[in-house]
């Protein structure tokens, strides 16, 4: 018997949302439809008939009050909200062949999405660097502290790299 629920592990970086959308669409065309998103990089799919689904990811950290208005707009426009993960909103819509539905229909609003993401990355980044700078001045009073430092340094570098990639994406969009 073929299993009807399939879990896949796949990692996407914060600036690879379009790649992720394309991958999810490809899975649907192979009959694997996203069922839920939860932990980062774990995707649960339900097996079904192949369908031509367009997936779109929005970055929208809404409050509870704003949530209903936000989701209602997408529902009315024919988009199904599949789930959310750390303010990333997963939507999908069945598309006719050759049709390419979009949730963002102009450059300015697309730029605004990446600016929200960039803002979030910078907020995460700020305290990390402050801690690192303070600690570097201290020497190594305890051996375990250097482990934390290295971890912090790696995370900080990744966040910084992600922020740069998102920033470049904004620049590229603005040049279009």
């Amino acid at each position, binding site marked *: 018997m073929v299993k009807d629920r399939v879990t896949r592990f796949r990692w996407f970086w914060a600036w690879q949302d379009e790649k992720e959308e394309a991958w999810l669409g490809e899975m649907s065309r192979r009959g694997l439809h996203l069922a839920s998103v939860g932990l980062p990089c774990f995707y649960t799919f339900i097996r079904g008939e192949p369908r031509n689904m367009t997936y779109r990811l929005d970055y929208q950290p809404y409050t509870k009050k704003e949530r209903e208005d936000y989701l*209602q*707009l997408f529902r009315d426009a024919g988009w199904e909200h599949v789930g959310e993960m750390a303010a990333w909103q997963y939507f999908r819509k069945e598309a006719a062949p050759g049709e390419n539905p979009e949730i*963002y229909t102009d450059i*300015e609003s697309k730029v605004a999405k990446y600016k929200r993401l960039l803002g979030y990355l910078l907020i995460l980044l700020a305290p990390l660097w402050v801690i690192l700078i303070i600690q570097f001045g201290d020497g190594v009073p305890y051996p375990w502290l250097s482990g934390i430092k290295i971890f912090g340094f790696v995370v900080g570098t990744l966040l910084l790299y992600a922020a740069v990639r998102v920033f470049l994406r904004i620049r590229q969009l603005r040049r279009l």
Partner: protein
Amino acid sequence: MARNNLDNYLPLTESTYYIMLSLLEPLHGYGVMQRVEAISRGTVRVGPGTLYGALTMLEKEGLIVKVSEEDRRKSYQLTDEGRELLKKQVQRLEIMAASGRAAHMAGK
């Protein structure tokens, strides 16, 4: 609250312009999407992401207000300030269209 100079909002993006134009009368989000497509004669379609961002911004800036809620769908309408801004945008567009037309005729 003291208001910014309305000129700072100009020029509006094409989407925001049509969204505001469709909110001369109260309308909910989905109605805005349909009306934008109709009044722009199919040249502009507004996706829900773009619309949500525009409505949020316009409301925050006091250019539109929520007027009612039905079936969880909120209706918005332009404020006086919003109307004033829209008028200024129309004036700019008229100049653009007229100068473009004149240049086009001369070039012909």
